[in-house]
C-alpha cells in the first residue's frame, strides 16, 4: 500500500548515512585476470587503477626447466580517492595457456575460487562472526588473443568451467592490431561462440526504477562486451600539447582514454564506476549461494523448513554415538578373541601334560608288570625246588656265550 506523505519526514537522508558509514569502513574488491602470457594483463590492471600495482616484469634468463602448473598469485593494494578507501586485490594466473599441454590448466583456478567460497562459508558458520573477511573473487577478466577469427578451444573450455562460479567479463587484449571492421566481426563471432556453448558471461541487471539515462548508458556499455582494449602506463604528447596515456607507433599514437580508439573507457566505467557494487552483490547473492546450496546438499543435509535450528549438531551427535558404539563393539570382539586364544592355549598345555602323565603311567605299569613277572618266575622256581644258581649261571653262561 503506497501512501502519500503529508509533510517532510526526513528518511530521504538515509542514503547519506549509509554513504558515511561505508566510506568510513572502506571498500574491498577482488578481481582475477586470466589469459596467456604476453596479452597485457598486468599493464591493463595498472592502467585501470592509474597506479603501478604490478611492477614491470623482469625478463628471466632462458632456462631449460619451466614451471609445469598454473600458479595463483595475488597482490593487494590500498588506494584512496576523495576520502574513499579501496582495498584492491588482483589475482594473477601466470602459466595459464602457456604449456604444450594445457589440459586441466583451469583446475588450479577453479580450485582457488572454490576454496575462497569455502573459506567464506566456514567463516559464516563460526560462532563468533564479528570479523568476516570477504576474499571471494568478484570479477574475472578473461583475455582473448586478438586472432580476429573466433574463440580458441582453450578459451571455450575455460569459460565453460568457470562461468557458474565467477562473473566472467571477456576482453579482447591488444586490440590495437585489429582494424575497425575486424573488431566488429571478431566480437560478433565471439558472442556467437559464447551463445553456442551456453556460457553465462556477466550481464548487468536492469532495474525498473532506474532513470532513462542510466538505462541507456548501461545498455551501451553492455553492448560493447567483449571490450576491445589497449593498456598503457606511459604518457605521450599529442598535437595540441596534451599529455595522454597511450602507445606510440611510427604510424600514430593510440590513446587509451579515447573512446574512439578502444573500449578501455567503457571497461573502466563498468568495472569501477558503475558496476563494482553490482558485481559484488551478484557474487554474494547468486554465485556464492548456488555454490553453498550445491555443497551442502552434496553433504547430505536436507533443508527442513519446520525446524528453525540447524540440523547439524543433532546429526553430529548421532554420528558420534554410532562411532562410540562401534568402538565398544570392536573392543568386545577383541577381548573375546583374546580370551578364546588363552583358553585354547591352556587346554593345549593341559592336554600335553595329560599325555605325558599317561605315558609315564603306562611306563610305570609296564615296569611293574615286568617286575611282577620276574617275581613270579622266582617264586615258581623256588616252589619247584630247583636251585637257582646253576640254572642262573647256565642261563648266564648262555646269555654271555652268545
Amino acid at each position, binding site marked *: 500500500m503506497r501512501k502519500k506523505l503529508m509533510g517532510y519526514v526526513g528518511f530521504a537522508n538515509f542514503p547519506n548515512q549509509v554513504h558515511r558509514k561505508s566510506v568510513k569502513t572502506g571498500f574491498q574488491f577482488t578481481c582475477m585476470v586470466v589469459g596467456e602470457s604476453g596479452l597485457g594483463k598486468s599493464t591493463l590492471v595498472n592502467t585501470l587503477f592509474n597506479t603501478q600495482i604490478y611492477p614491470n616484469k623482469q625478463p628471466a634468463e632462458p632456462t631449460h626447466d619451466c614451471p609445469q602448473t598454473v600458479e595463483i598469485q595475488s597482490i593487494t593494494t590500498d588506494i584512496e580517492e576523495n576520502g574513499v578507501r579501496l582495498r584492491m586485490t588482483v589475482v594473477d594466473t601466470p602459466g595459464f595457456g602457456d604449456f604444450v599441454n*594445457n589440459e586441466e590448466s583451469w583446475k588450479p583456478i577453479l580450485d582457488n575460487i572454490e576454496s575462497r567460497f569455502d573459506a567464506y562459508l566456514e567463516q559464516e558458520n563460526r560462532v563468533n562472526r564479528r570479523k568476516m573477511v570477504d576474499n571471494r573473487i568478484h570479477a574475472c577478466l578473461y583475455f582473448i588473443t586478438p586472432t580476429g*577469427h573466433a574463440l580458441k578451444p582453450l578459451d571455450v*573450455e575455460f569459460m565453460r568451467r568457470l562461468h557458474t562460479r565467477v562473473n566472467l567479463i571477456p576482453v579482447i587484449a591488444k586490440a590495437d*592490431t585489429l582494424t*575497425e571492421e575486424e573488431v566488429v566481426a571478431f566480437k560478433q563471432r565471439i558472442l556467437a561462440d559464447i551463445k553456442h556453448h551456453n556460457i553465462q558471461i556477466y550481464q548487468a541487471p536492469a532495474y525498473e526504477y532506474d532513470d532513462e539515462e542510466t538505462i541507456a548508458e548501461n545498455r551501451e556499455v553492455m553492448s560493447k562486451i567483449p571490450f576491445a582494449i589497449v593498456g598503457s602506463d606511459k604518457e605521450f604528447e599529442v598535437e595540441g600539447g596534451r599529455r595522454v596515456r597511450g*602507445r606510440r*607507433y611510427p604510424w600514430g*599514437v593510440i590513446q587509451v582514454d579515447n573512446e574512439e580508439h578502444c573500449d578501455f573507457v567503457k571497461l573502466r566505467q563498468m568495472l569501477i564506476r558503475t558496476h563494482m557494487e553490482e558485481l559484488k552483490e551478484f557474487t554474494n547473492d547468486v554465485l556464492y549461494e548456488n555454490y553453498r546450496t550445491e555443497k551442502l546438499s552434496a553433504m547430505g543435509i536436507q533443508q527442513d523448513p519446520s525446524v528453525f535450528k540447524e540440523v547439524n549438531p543433532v546429526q553430529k551427535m548421532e554420528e558420534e554415538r554410532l562411532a562410540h558404539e562401534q568402538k565398544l563393539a570392536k573392543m568386545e570382539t577383541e577381548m573375546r578373541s583374546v580370551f578364546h586364544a588363552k583358553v585354547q592355549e591352556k587346554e593345549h598345555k593341559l592336554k600335553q601334560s595329560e599325555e605325558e602323565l599317561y605315558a609315564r603311567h603306562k611306563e610305570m605299569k609296564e615296569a611293574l608288570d615286568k617286575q611282577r613277572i620276574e617275581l613270579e618266575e622266582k617264586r615258581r622256581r623256588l616252589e619247584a625246588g630247583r636251585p637257582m644258581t646253576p640254572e642262573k649261571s647256565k642261563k648266564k653262561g648262555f646269555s654271555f656265550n652268545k
Partner: protein
Amino acid sequence: MSSNTLNSEPAAAALDNYVGFDTITQQIEKKLLKRGFHFNVMVVGQSGLGKSTLVNTIFASHLIESKARLAADEPPRQTTEIQTVSHLIEEHGVRLRLNIVDTPGYGDQVNNENCWEPIIKYIKDQHSAYLRKELTATRDRYIQDSRVHCCLFFIGPTGHALKPIDIVVLKKLSEVVNVVPVIAKSDSLTLEERQAFKQRIKAELVFHNIKLYPYESDEDDEQEQALNESIRELLPFAIVGSERNVIIDGKAVRGRKNRYGVINVESEEHCEFIYLRNFLTRTHLQDLIETTAQIHYEAFRAKQLLAIRESTHPASAQPSVASPTATMLSSPMAPTVMSPSTIGSPATMGSPAQSQKYVL
C-alpha cells in the same frame, strides 16, 4: 699445361685471344628459363597470426585462403592438417611454380603434444620421395622437386619470450628444413618493445642451440657474408601483412587502416616486410633451394642409405633411423595437389661440377 696429378691445383693459363666460353652463363640461363623454377614454401604458426595474409602479400596475389573457423557450430580442427596449394606465376619471362604448404590446426588445441609430427613427417616424406626417384634405375631426366625449401615460422607478438611449444617445434624443424622466423602482427609492438623482443628471442635461440637460416658457409665471399650478417641481425623479421590497399599521400599502397593511424606495409619504418620480401625473393631464393638440396637433403639421404646398409648387413650394430627406412621403401608418397606440367629440377647454377647428379 701439365700438372702432376688430377687433384692438385691446376696451373693458371693466360689466353691470347677471345675464346667465348664466358657465354656459358647465358646458355645456362636460357635453359633454365625454358625449364622454369620450383619453389616450395611452408608456413607454420598458430591460428590467427596472419600466415595466409602474409603469403598473399609477399607474392602480391591471392594465393591461399585463410582457414579461420568462422561459424560457431563449426568444430575446431582436431589435428594439424597439411594442405598444399600450387600456383604458376610469371614475371619478365621467368616462370616460377610456387607451392605453398599450409598447416592449419597447428598449436590450436588444448593439448598440443605432438602437433608438430605431421609437419615433420611431411617434410621427410618429400625428401624420401625425391630419394626414391633418384635411386630408381631408370630415373627421370629432371626430377620434380617437391622438397620444402623454406619454412616461415610465425611467432606470436607477446613481447615477452618464446613459448615452450615454439622452442620445441623450432628445434625439430631446424634440423630438417631452412627455418626463417618472423614475428607476426608486429603492429601490436612499439619499436622499443620490438627490439627487446628480438633480443630475447635471439638469446633463447642461442641458448637452445637452434640453427636458423642463413647458415655459415666457407664458400661465401665477403659481400655475401656481410649480407648474411645483416640478415642475421634482423632476424626474426617483424612483419605486418595486408592484401588491401590504403591511400597514403595520394598513392595506393598495401596497408592497414586503424582508428588511430595508417600502417604502410611497404615502408621500412613501419615494419620489416620489405626486408623479408627481398630476402625471400630477390637475394636468397636460389640459395634457399640450393641449401635444401645440399645440406638438408644430403643429411637425410646419408642417414637413409646408412640405415639401408645396416638393415641388409644385420651383423653390424642396430639401425640408426628405423622409421624413414620403412617410409622410403614401402609407403606411398604424401598426396600433394600439384599439377605435373613442367618437370623442373632445382636450379643449381653455382656448381655444376660438384653435383653430377643434376643433369643440366
